[in-house]
C-alpha cells in the first residue's frame, strides 16, 4: 500500500458535544450551537472563535429528517461565524468521520490554520418507520432495498448470519457486546442510555410485579436478552438490544496546524494517521463477514501513522449493531478474523481489557445521531487520551487512540488515529 502523508502536522485542540438522546423542541441548529459552546469551553488556554477560518460539517440527511437542506451556512450563521466558508459533508453514517478528514486535509494543505469540524443530526422528529425509510436511502435503493426489502438492521443481520456461519459464533456473543457497551454508557453523562442492562432488567421485573403479573425467571442479563418479549427481534438474528437507537445530537472539534497547538491547549492530540475507502453494495463484496472498506481504511491509517494495532490503547468503533463491533475489532487488526467474538466473550474489549473498545458506550448506548457519530467518537478519544474520562477512564494512561466510522453497510469507512503530544 502507498504510504500517504499529511503536508504538515494537524492537531485537535478542542472538543465538545451535546448529550445524545431524544430532545423534542431542539432543532439541529440548537444542537450545533450547544456543542459549539461546550467545545469553546474545552479550550484550555483561551481562543477566540473569530480565529476559525472554515467549517466542515458532517450531516447525513437534514433534508429527510428536518426538511431542511443547505444547512452548513445556517449552522455557521447561528454560531456567529459568517461569512466563513462552510461545507456539509455527506457519507451516510460516516459523514462525521469524513468531515474530520476534510478538515485535516484543509489544514495539512496549508490553506487554513484553524478549522471547525462538526457533525450533527436531528432524527427524532420523524416516527420510527419514517426514520427507517430515511436511513434506507444510505443503501442501494434500486438493488438492495427495493427488491429484497433490506433495511439497515437487515443488512447487518445478513452479515451476522455470514459471520456466525463462518466462525460458529452465537447470538449470545452479540449480546455480550451490548452488555459491555451499556456498562460503559452508564458511566457517560452524554449517553442516551444511562442504565446497565442489568438495571433495565431489574426495573422491568419490578414493573411487571407491580402490575400483578408473574415475575419473569431471568437469572442474568443473557436470560433477559434471550426473552423475545423483553428483547424483540428486529431483523433476525438481531434484536432490539443489538441495535443503536434513533438519536439527536451534535459534536464539534477544533483543528489547528500543529505549530499552533501548544498556544491553545496544554494537551493537544496530533493526527497520526487517517485513511478512507469506498465499496459497493453488500452483495457485491468478496467478504460478507467483514467490512473490506474498514480493512483498507485501517491499513492506510496505520501506514501513515507508522504504527500497528497493538499500539492503539483505546478505540471508538462504529457499533451501529453489535455484530459491527465484532467485525470492526477484526478489521482493525486487534484480533484475528473469527476471534473478535471470542474476545468480546472474554472481556478483552472491556475498559480494563487488552483492547478497550467503546469506553463511551459506543453508538449502542451513547446514541447514534448518524452525522454526529464520527465526531462524537473523537470527543471520547480526546477525553481518554487527556485522562479526563472520569469513572470510565481506561487504565494505563493511554496515549494513542483510534476512531472507526462506517457509512451504510460499509460503502464508506474512515479511520483516524490520534496521539497525545
Amino acid at each position, binding site marked *: 500500500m502507498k504510504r500517504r502523508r499529511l503536508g504538515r502536522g494537524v492537531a485537535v485542540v478542542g472538543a465538545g458535544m451535546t448529550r445524545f438522546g431524544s430532545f423534542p423542541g431542539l432543532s439541529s441548529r440548537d444542537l450545533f450551537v450547544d456543542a459549539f459552546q461546550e467545545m469553546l469551553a474545552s479550550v484550555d488556554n483561551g481562543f477566540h472563535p473569530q480565529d476559525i477560518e472554515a467549517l466542515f460539517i458532517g450531516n447525513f440527511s437534514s433534508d429527510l429528517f428536518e426538511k431542511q437542506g443547505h444547512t452548513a451556512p445556517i449552522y455557521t450563521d447561528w454560531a456567529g461565524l459568517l461569512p466563513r466558508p462552510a461545507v456539509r459533508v455527506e457519507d451516510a453514517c460516516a459523514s462525521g468521520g469524513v468531515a474530520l478528514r476534510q478538515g485535516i486535509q484543509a489544514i495539512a494543505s496549508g490553506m487554513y490554520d484553524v478549522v471547525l469540524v462538526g457533525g450533527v443530526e436531528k432524527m427524532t422528529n420523524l416516527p420510527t418507520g419514517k426514520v427507517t425509510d430515511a436511513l434506507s436511502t444510505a443503501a442501494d435503493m434500486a438493488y438492495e432495498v427495493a427488491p429484497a*426489502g433490506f*433495511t439497515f438492521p437487515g443488512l447487518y443481520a445478513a452479515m451476522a448470519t455470514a459471520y456466525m456461519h463462518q466462525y460458529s459464533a452465537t447470538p449470545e456473543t452479540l449480546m455480550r457486546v451490548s452488555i459491555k457497551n451499556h456498562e460503559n454508557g452508564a458511566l457517560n453523562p452524554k449517553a442516551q442510555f444511562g442504565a446497565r442492562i442489568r438495571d433495565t432488567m431489574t426495573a422491568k421485573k419490578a414493573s411487571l410485579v407491580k402490575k400483578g403479573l408473574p415475575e419473569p425467571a431471568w437469572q442474568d442479563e443473557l436470560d433477559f436478552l434471550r426473552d423475545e418479549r423483553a428483547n424483540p427481534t428486529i431483523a433476525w438474528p438481531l434484536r432490539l438490544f443489538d441495535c443503536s437507537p434513533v438519536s439527536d445530537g451534535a459534536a464539534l472539534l477544533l483543528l489547528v496546524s500543529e505549530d499552533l497547538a501548544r498556544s491553545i491547549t496544554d494537551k493537544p492530540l496530533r493526527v497520526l494517521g487517517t485513511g478512507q475507502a469506498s465499496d459497493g453494495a453488500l452483495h*457485491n463484496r468478496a467478504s460478507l463477514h467483514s467490512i473490506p472498506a474498514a480493512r483498507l481504511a485501517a491499513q492506510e491509517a496505520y501506514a501513515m501513522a507508522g504504527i500497528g494495532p497493538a499500539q492503539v490503547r483505546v478505540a471508538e468503533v462504529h457499533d451501529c449493531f453489535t455484530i459491527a463491533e465484532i467485525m470492526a475489532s477484526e478489521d482493525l487488526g486487534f484480533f484475528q478474523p473469527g476471534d473478535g467474538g471470542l474476545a468480546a466473550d472474554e472481556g478483552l474489549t472491556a475498559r480494563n481489557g487488552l483492547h478497550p473498545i467503546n469506553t463511551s458506550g459506543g453508538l449502542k448506548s451513547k446514541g447514534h445521531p448518524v452525522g454526529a457519530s464520527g465526531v462524537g467518537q473523537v470527543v471520547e478519544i480526546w477525553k481518554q487520551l487527556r485522562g479526563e474520562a472520569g469513572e470510565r477512564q481506561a487504565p494505563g494512561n493511554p496515549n494513542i487512540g483510534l476512531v472507526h466510522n462506517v457509512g451504510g453497510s460499509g460503502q464508506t469507512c474512515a479511520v483516524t488515529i490520534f496521539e497525545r503530544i
Partner: protein
Amino acid sequence: MNQPLFNHASYNDYLSQRRLMGSRCVKDGALYLPPRALCAQDFSSEMEWVEFRGRGRLAAFSIIYIGPDHMIEAGYGRETPYCAAIIELEEGPKISAQLLDVDVFRPETIHIGMSVQAIYIQRSQETVLAFRPA
C-alpha cells in the same frame, strides 16, 4: 445501436419478461448483474447482454420484522416477517432478493449454502426477482 442500454431500466424490462439479464465485458469477460455499461476492471464500454440461469446458493440472510414502506404495503410486518437474502449465482455474481417458501419462524431451518432458484413475483405493478429453495 439497436441493443438496449445496459442500465436499470433495461434490467427491469427484462425482468418483466421473466428473464434475468446482465452484461459481460467483451474484452475481459467480467460479468455484471445488474448490467453495467462500463467495465470496472478494464474501463471498456464494449458490453454484451448475457442471460443468467437463475440458479445459485444462499450466501447470507435475515428475517425482517420491521420493513420499509413498500414491504409493509406488500403485507409484511411484525406478525408476517419476510426473508431478505443475498444469493450467489452459479455464474459468480451475487444479488440481493427476497427468499420465499422458507419457514421464517424457524430460521434455524434456513441454511447458508442451500440451493435456490429464481422466481418472478408481482409487487405493486412491478415484476420483481425473488428466489425459493431449489
